[in-house]
């Protein structure tokens, strides 16, 4: 099975811990990685890339010491190696200008406000990872139990069931 990483970035350990816990049901299928800063996330992504694995999704907080979340997600979206990586902004403190920048420049796929609902976050994450797997042409059968069925069905209908 191809190793797909999911990175969560938050400078607050307890928040990071809670996000990872919400994503626990995906653990047998994806590698969940915590990072405490944007810099650590960049470093981690380089390592993952060198190992020949992929980064399917980055969930990032916005207000962190050092680099802001929106800037990190912008970098990811502008880096060809990670152009297909999905991005979620999870924040309680972004203002309107930040949010506009997140959409226009960082091209985020989803926006969550703190406090978030675990089930909603998990649902969105599944959907985005399903899209990622299908867009990258990764063998999706192995991920079946955690894929978003609606997303999969739409894809298969469009591309024929024998792809």
């Amino acid at each position, binding site marked *: 099975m191809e190793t797909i990483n999911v990175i969560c970035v938050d400078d607050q350990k*307890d928040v990071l*811990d*809670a996000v*990872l*816990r919400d994503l*626990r049901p995906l*653990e*047998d299928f994806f*590698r*969940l*990685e*915590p*990072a*405490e800063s944007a810099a*650590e996330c960049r*470093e*981690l992504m380089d390592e993952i890339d060198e190992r020949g694995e992929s980064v399917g999704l980055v969930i990032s907080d916005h*207000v962190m*010491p*050092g680099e*802001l979340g929106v800037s990190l997600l912008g970098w990811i979206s502008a880096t060809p190696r990670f152009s297909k990586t999905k991005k979620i902004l999870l924040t309680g*403190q972004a*203002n309107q*200008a*930040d949010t506009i920048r997140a959409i226009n420049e960082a091209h985020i796929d989803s926006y969550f406000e703190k406090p978030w609902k675990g089930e909603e976050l998990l649902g969105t994450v599944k959907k985005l990872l399903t899209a990622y797997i299908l867009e990258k042409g990764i063998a999706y059968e192995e991920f079946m139990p955690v894929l978003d069925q609606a997303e999969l069905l739409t894809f298969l209908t469009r591309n024929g069931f024998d792809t």
Partner: protein
Amino acid sequence: MFSSYTELEKKIDRLKAVYFSNPDKRIRFEKGKILVRQGELNKRLYLIISGEVAGNHFLHRDYGSHNPGASFEMFRGQAGTFVGVQSFFSQLYQSFSEIVAESDIEVAYIDTSTSAIEPEIYGSLFEQFVPVMLYELALRNYNLLEKQLEKEAAQTRMHRTEMNATLGQLAAGLAHELNNAIGVLDRKTNFISDFTEDTLRRYLPSEYRLYHYGKEEQPVVSTKELRRVSQKYEHDFGLSGSVARILALIAPSAEEFEKLPENFVKHLKKNYRFWELGHDIRDMLIAAKHAAGVVKSVKILGGYSGQRKSRFSLYDSLSQALSLLQQNLRNVSLELLLGKPEESPRMVGDEAELIQIWVNLIKNACDALTETPNATIRISLHTSEKQAEVRIEDNGPGIPDSLKSRVFHPDFTTKKEGLSFGLGLGLAIVQRLVTAYEGEISFESAPGKTIFKVNLPLENGE
């Protein structure tokens, strides 16, 4: 306002010399005497030779905030000013205001019987005095304008103060409501914690061990190191990512791992949820404490003070603040010049408030040092007979000149973009607290050296 000697002034000076040098038409008034009352007949135009007068206008109408009969000052005149210009030249001969001698004065005057001098050159009396009328009216207009602007500025200031007070009250009310909710969360979490602890210890001793590991303070290891160890465990023991991470937290090094009992990994794999339970309760307790702290800050800013007075040593308050900030001080080298604990000056007040002052200042210093190589914070305590001075110095990039005037303002923050109520409260609260102790806070800042100084008066007769 008219500084250069102009044509206008030249003309006015001629009038003063020509019309107001008759010794028969000079009068002295003692201080407090009224030259003319408002509405009274006045057929004279006065020139003040010495002393000072004030012109007060009495209100007939009710303007809401001013009662009828209240007066306000229209103008002030010193030597060289004309008085009665309006009533004399409007030919109403009725005074617009009451003129009072503010000191002993001497005035010269002309009246309606005065006739024009050299009319063939300078025209009629009326024509000759046009410059005086214009000059006086312009001066009076200018004074009124200044008064108006002053009043507007005062109104703006008052409005801002009122707004701040309202915000403070709002915040205090909100803080009170939240405080109760947080209190419940904190207490109930403690109950759950106690019950869980007792029950596990009694019935599930080996799971209790895991629970306890989770509840204990975590070792200070970088996430990078943790990731390395965790990947190793994952690989060595075929663990899932999250169990491997827990194992790495319990045993971050080979030595720690050696100390673990036999079959521990197997046990952890099966029962890691107990570790998480302990960890969750720990996070909940910390979060409740944090929330309570934020609420307290807002209350203090809103003017609330639930002061509990006690006598405590400054040394202790500083060392308590430092122990609260251990996490922040990880990457900072700390120099302490606090003297001996037993010789520390003592203060009377709420120790928690003093700790809050130090925590805020030291945390700011830490935050300023994130990008600084050889980050250093020096904290020193200097005592004299009447006061103690605490200095907190860092070698960070310093406060930019453009921000220096605003650092104590309640909505000032560098810690995030945009406006927000929350993190920016730090220095505003510190200032408020220091002032409440009749102390002073000041700072000096340049790249590589920023010092915050807090001076606190000590009570006599220690």
